[in-house]
């Protein structure tokens, strides 16, 4: 890469063209891979035997999921919601911490798929499929907690807008009901987006299938896709519309989750910064989870040419950026609590940060600060972004930190509500821990099944990013040579050496 660039610039210089350095864009797919290679590599994952490491991750996570989610919830339902350590004043406890944590994880998937699609960021193509899968699985994990936290889970249908036995309707002015609509819409739309994006790739697997069962199963899933341009035309419009719909949707979901807190009058929650702060945090945490899953998957399945260091670098930069946003939000929230001179608000914050004699949860605040604000700062340095161990380490810390962020918000506030008589130390019960760990197992197991049975990289879109897929590629190359220029705009207009911008 570097050699080619240098050679080109010296050639331009000798031709008497302007000397301005033109930066070449890093390739998204390395080593000039062919269409067939890309299909082969990605479909190969689904067709071949799974490597040992896959089994090493899958089996324990499936067991943890069964014991934790299956066992934990069976015990909860058969005994009563009291087995969760939700003390009287802390009736939100872990369940809501875990709910907000998981729902946040999902956001990076939709962000990568929708917002980066609308902004024409082609680097998204290698990672969007896995990130969308993550969204689906994370929302599945998230849904468990509020559903079971209502106490009598068989009454969860009360959330749906149907009148109950007394003809009383749901309170549509409550953020908790808004949440029901937001999360279920988010799940449905993400699922549609994920599935529709996968249809052409499922057709690839169908066409390569050797045995009858696979042919039938993938045939049904591929809906009879043939890749005719008359189909692609509607398909692309469909994808664009779904992206345009998901973009405000993803921002609305965490905004509405934050309304659960922000519209209350509880000190520590009643904050107008919550909606943007929650959204930034969700993207931050979600990207960390994408890295946590994709860095090992890339290694295990040999996808280095498709998911390049450039992709990881971009994600690391997004984490650094959103980490700064989150850090700003933490400090601003604190500043307003102090500057606003509301003594209840300040009392809540003083207990949160350890400025009060009685601040039993200050440790969690500092865990959060370290993980979310300090650790991403490593990503200012290119060396750290290029070192996969550092990248993984920071991503893990961010995952932990984002869980603690929700813990800090919920527990530090509720544990010290208005009546000192209610004050007590909150600790999660073993069933709490078991269920949460279970959802981690469930998430991993589902992700492993996804890698096993579905195309984990968007084959059609990756092919589309190859230079040779542009029908004007040859003409542009020729025009470029003729003009002595090094780059051109996407629509084929040649830029002479003078400009450094453009699509180079």
């Amino acid at each position, binding site marked *: 890469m570097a050699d080619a660039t240098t050679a080109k610039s010296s050639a331009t210089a000798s031709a008497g063209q302007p000397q301005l350095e033109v930066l070449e864009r890093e390739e998204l797919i390395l080593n000039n891979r062919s269409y067939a290679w890309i299909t082969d590599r990605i479909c190969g994952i689904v067709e071949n035997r799974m490597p040992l490491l896959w089994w090493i991750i899958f089996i324990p996570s499936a067991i943890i999921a069964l014991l934790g989610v299956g066992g934990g919830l069976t015990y909860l339902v058969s005994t009563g919601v009291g087995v969760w350590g939700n003390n009287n004043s802390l009736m939100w406890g872990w369940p809501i911490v875990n709910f907000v944590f998981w729902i946040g994880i999902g956001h990076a998937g939709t962000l990568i798929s929708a917002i980066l699609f609308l902004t024409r960021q082609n680097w998204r193509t290698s990672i969007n499929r896995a990130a969308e899968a993550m969204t689906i699985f994370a929302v599945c994990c998230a849904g468990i907690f509020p559903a079971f936290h209502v106490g009598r889970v068989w009454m969860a249908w009360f959330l749906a807008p149907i*009148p109950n036995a007394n003809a009383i309707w749901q309170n549509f*002015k409550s953020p908790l009901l808004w949440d029901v609509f937001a999360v279920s819409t988010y799940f449905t*739309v993400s699922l549609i987006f994920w599935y529709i994006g996968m249809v052409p790739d499922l057709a690839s697997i169908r066409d390569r299938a050797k045995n009858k069962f696979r042919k039938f199963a993938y045939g049904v899933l591929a*809906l009879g896709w043939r890749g005719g*341009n008359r189909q692609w035309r509607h398909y692309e419009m469909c994808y664009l519309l779904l992206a345009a719909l998901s973009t405000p949707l993803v921002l609305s979901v965490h905004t509405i989750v934050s309304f659960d807190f922000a519209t209350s009058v509880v000190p520590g929650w009643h904050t107008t910064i919550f909606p943007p702060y929650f959204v930034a945090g969700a993207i931050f945490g979600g990207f960390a989870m994408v890295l946590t899953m994709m860095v090992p998957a890339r290694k295990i399945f040999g996808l280095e040419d498709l998911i390049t260091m450039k992709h990881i670098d971009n994600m690391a930069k997004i984490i650094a950026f959103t980490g700064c946003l989150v850090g700003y939000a933490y400090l601003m929230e604190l500043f307003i609590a102090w500057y606003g001179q509301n003594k209840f608000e300040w009392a809540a914050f003083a207990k949160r940060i350890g400025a009060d004699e009685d601040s039993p949860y200050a440790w969690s605040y500092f865990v959060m600060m370290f993980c979310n604000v300090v650790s991403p700062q490593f990503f200012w340095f290119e060396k750290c972004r290029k070192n996969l161990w550092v990248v993984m380490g920071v991503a893990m810390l961010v995952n932990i930190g984002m869980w603690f962020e929700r813990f800090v918000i919920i527990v530090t506030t509720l544990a010290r509500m208005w009546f000192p008589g209610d004050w007590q130390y909150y600790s999660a019960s073993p069933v709490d821990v078991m269920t949460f760990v279970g959802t981690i197992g469930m998430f991993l197991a589902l992700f492993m099944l996804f890698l096993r049975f579905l195309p984990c990289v968007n084959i059609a879109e990756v092919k589309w990013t190859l230079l040779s897929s542009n029908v004007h590629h040859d003409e542009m190359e020729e025009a470029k040579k003729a003009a002595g220029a090094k780059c051109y705009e996407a629509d084929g207009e040649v830029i002479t050496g003078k400009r450094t911008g453009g699509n180079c």
Partner: protein
Amino acid sequence: MKTGIKKVYGYLARFETPTDLYKAAAKVRDKGFKKWDAYSSFPIHGMDAAMGLGRSKLPFFVFFGGMTGTLTALALQFGTQVALYPTIVQAKPTNLFTIPAYFPVTFELTVLFSAFTTLFGMLALSQLPRMNHPLFESEQFKRVTDDGFFIAIEARDPRFNREQTREFLSEIGGSDIELVEEQLS
């Protein structure tokens, strides 16, 4: 060798690169064919113009889908909260002016209905799902989702002619030209 009644579906020709396919498509368009399609494993940009196709009508349907969602949400909320069973919770009023409280649900249902319209509209417009298609009879057509680029001209096109169409396809650079037949019984 399959026997029984067969019906000619049309000709299938393969092209080497997306650029070849693009150029050939423009020629098929200029020749005046109507019932034909260019097949590739990824969307080729500029192909709509090369095939003489207009913009997809999908957004038109989605607009109405979305509006249905908005109206459903407003009817659901005003109907239940103002007309059927007004409940005053936390001193929040229930009347026609409480609309700010109804924004989140209205937004969500608008998005939900639009997404469903997008999904089903796309399927309907591209005549999916279907499990069988005459082109699946062709062995080489399996490459369409891998690295094959094809043009298929259907027999029901008024300009279709067994000899001339075949010649025409090879003239514009098609290779492996194949007469695809549909198995009827």
